[in-house]
């Protein structure tokens, strides 16, 4: 009932842990974030060599067959170390989509490069007014012979500035908020008439707003069925949430340990902070929040792995509950660190910001609470 890891999974986890411990401490991460690209191609290559990029994919796709539990293991450790490389965008989002709805040719063309760490991807589904609604697409894709011509603007595409490939949702039919008629396209980041305006994200990553002005895409670059993009994105979201919850759990566990440690050493009014009962109970609530988040995250990942029918509802539930729990833990970790918690130099604020970012990605806790409530 609890996740007792298989030998393989234990191996995966300990190899990530060892690598990150040796090569990805907070100083190293800070240096990576400060580079132009904001992520390290060298580390990316190492992740691939460790098998992380191939871990979740099916063996029939050339992957290691680890599925959502492998993703959970990777993301939790990445959460613990605030890894900024575009694993989530490339492997979980794009890779998952390609494996899920891509044609045999597309899988063959794209997945090996992802698994080998030779290509990074980004997923462009959001628009300025879309909020968290996949239906709300005004970007259009007009058929012209064996091509589609894409026009529109996509917002807040994390990982886009340095991605090799983009997956873009665009409307091939239907009205601006119809569920049907949205299709997905693989677009080269260097495609003609595609303009990127880059910006930094709260958690030290790079994102971009895309403007497509008649970008031509070969028809065989449509991913999945014509008009069925929303369904594919919804399944992607469930996997994305499972991964983000695991990452949040990793980040929360570091915040809890750091806060506890700090409270035992830091003195105020002549005694350790941790002797104040109010702070003790706060940390107990942080502990409980983490325990519950771990439980729900495992439960969601197991349910997705078992293809339980209520997986999508459960995903929203977990995104909400884990999101609220993570926000509580992050806010209290800063509060209990006092002034130090506000400083950019300490790692605590960076975990806070990654959690704030996770809570925005694919819908915030309030959105998913009501989505959970509305799903029968």
């Amino acid at each position: 009932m609890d996740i007792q890891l298989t030998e393989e999974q234990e191996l995966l986890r300990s190899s990530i842990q060892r690598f990150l411990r040796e090569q990805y401490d907070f100083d190293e991460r800070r240096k990576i974030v400060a580079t132009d690209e904001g992520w390290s191609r060298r580390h990316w290559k190492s992740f691939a060599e460790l098998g992380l990029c191939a871990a979740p994919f099916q063996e029939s796709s050339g992957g290691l067959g680890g599925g959502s539990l492998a993703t959970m293991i990777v993301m939790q450790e990445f959460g613990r170390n605030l890894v900024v490389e575009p694993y989530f965008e490339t492997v979980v989002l794009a890779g998952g989509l390609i494996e899920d709805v891509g044609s045999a040719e597309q899988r063959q063309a794209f997945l090996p490069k992802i698994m080998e760490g030779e290509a990074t991807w980004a997923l462009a589904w959001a628009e300025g007014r879309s909020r968290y609604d996949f239906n709300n697409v005004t970007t259009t894709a007009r058929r012209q012979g064996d091509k589609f011509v894409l026009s529109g603007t996509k917002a807040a595409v994390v990982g886009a500035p340095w991605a090799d490939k983009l997956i873009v949702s665009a409307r091939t039919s239907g009205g601006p908020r119809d569920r049907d008629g949205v299709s997905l396209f693989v677009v080269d980041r260097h495609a003609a008439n595609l303009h990127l305006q880059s910006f930094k994200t709260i958690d030290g990553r790079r994102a971009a707003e895309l403007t497509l002005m008649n970008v031509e895409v070969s028809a065989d670059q449509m991913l999945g069925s014509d008009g069925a993009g929303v369904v594919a994105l919804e399944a992607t979201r469930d996997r994305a949430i499972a991964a983000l919850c695991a990452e949040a759990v990793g980040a929360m566990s570091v915040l809890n340990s750091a806060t506890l440690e700090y409270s035992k050493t830091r003195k105020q009014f002549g005694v350790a902070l941790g002797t104040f009962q109010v702070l003790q109970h706060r940390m107990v609530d942080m502990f409980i929040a983490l325990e519950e988040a771990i439980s729900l995250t495992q439960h969601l990942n197991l349910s997705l792995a078992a293809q339980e029918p209520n997986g999508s509802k459960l995903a929203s539930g977990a995104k909400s509950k884990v999101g609220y729990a993570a926000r509580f833990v992050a806010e209290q970790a800063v509060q209990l660190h006092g002034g130090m918690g506000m400083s950019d130099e300490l790692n605590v604020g960076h975990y806070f910001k990654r959690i704030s970012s996770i809570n925005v990605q694919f819908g915030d806790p309030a959105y998913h609470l009501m989505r959970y409530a509305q799903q029968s």
Partner: protein
Amino acid sequence: MELNLSREDAAFRNEVRAFIAENYPQEMCVPNPETDLTKEQSLLWHRILYTRGWIAPLWPKEYGGPGWSVTQRFIFEQETSRAGTLPPLAFSVTMVGPVIYTFGNDAQKKKFLPRILSGDDWWCQGYSELGSGSDLASVRTKAVRDGDHYIVNGHKTWTTLAQHADWIFCLVRTDPSAKPQAGISFLLIDMKSPGVTVRPIITIDGSHEVNDVFLEDVRVPAENLIGEENKGWTYAKFLLGNERTSMAGIGRSTRYLARLKQIVTTEVDEDDPAFGEFIREIARVELDVLALEATELRIVAQMSRGIDPGPAASLFKIRGTEIFQRITDLTHQAIGNYGLAIREHPVTANRFMPGPDYGHTATEKYLNSRKLSIYGGSNEVQRNIIAKAVLGL
């Protein structure tokens, strides 16, 4: 949430379900079994379980337990509570029984255990005293040795269902000079002994569940001492651990949550300003239940692999009671104007109670459940325990 069960375990679950469906007494299906049943009615299901050999899932086989695995016990707990069966006497089966077979002598085991299982003896708990509350070590009831007896004087309070009890297990101070925890003994007292008086305490919901128990020069045979004199604190803590473990109350919360949903569907129109609030709050508490259940499953899985759950019991107690209080609060809100009404106790069918049947106990449940964060070691004390035992603070 359903467990991924092995075929054997699934068969067991079906067996339990069927047994409940076929055997649970119709007589016990009253609005609020905890307060509305007579002593004899309360014992009906206990005796049925006893006959079936299922009355004491946690007990070792040699003392009358069914010899179940951790998973089977969990399944049984889950099925019985989801079905809303009245749990067997916790003070007998869950609390004093394990103390007797763990720390008692052979004579005590032989005398008491069978009558606990059969329901012939009804036990109550003599822990709390006026002014002690969650601080049990401050017990002031005195037991003074007099030949082969103890003379007991004191005043126990918040004693649940003492009005039905045949026996009471008491913490008594046998060494007034020792440090608080060191001078306490664990004594079994016959409620029929001269000098024992029970006085009802009516709680804010109007019900009579708890009592004062006055002990005046009560002569208790020394053979009723459990274990060693002045070592009672050890046995008392052992017992409290057992008490709290069961406090997640997933089954009960799941049932009351389903009822709440039904009430909201019936009572609150979609255009009521508060409709969205109910939907949201129900979703929130449902996720709380789900997360606690998933946590319980993790712990059960760890236990079945031999890992000590540690002070997880405190987590279950805190969150389980917070959740149930929230559900009863929302249920009270859901019945709207009828939330003004409260049943009169003792309950009879003759008294008029307004509004739909499902709302009749909502108010008293809301009031009664306020006790959950106080009794059994207040939630503040539970947080202290986690701070110390888990966080090392």
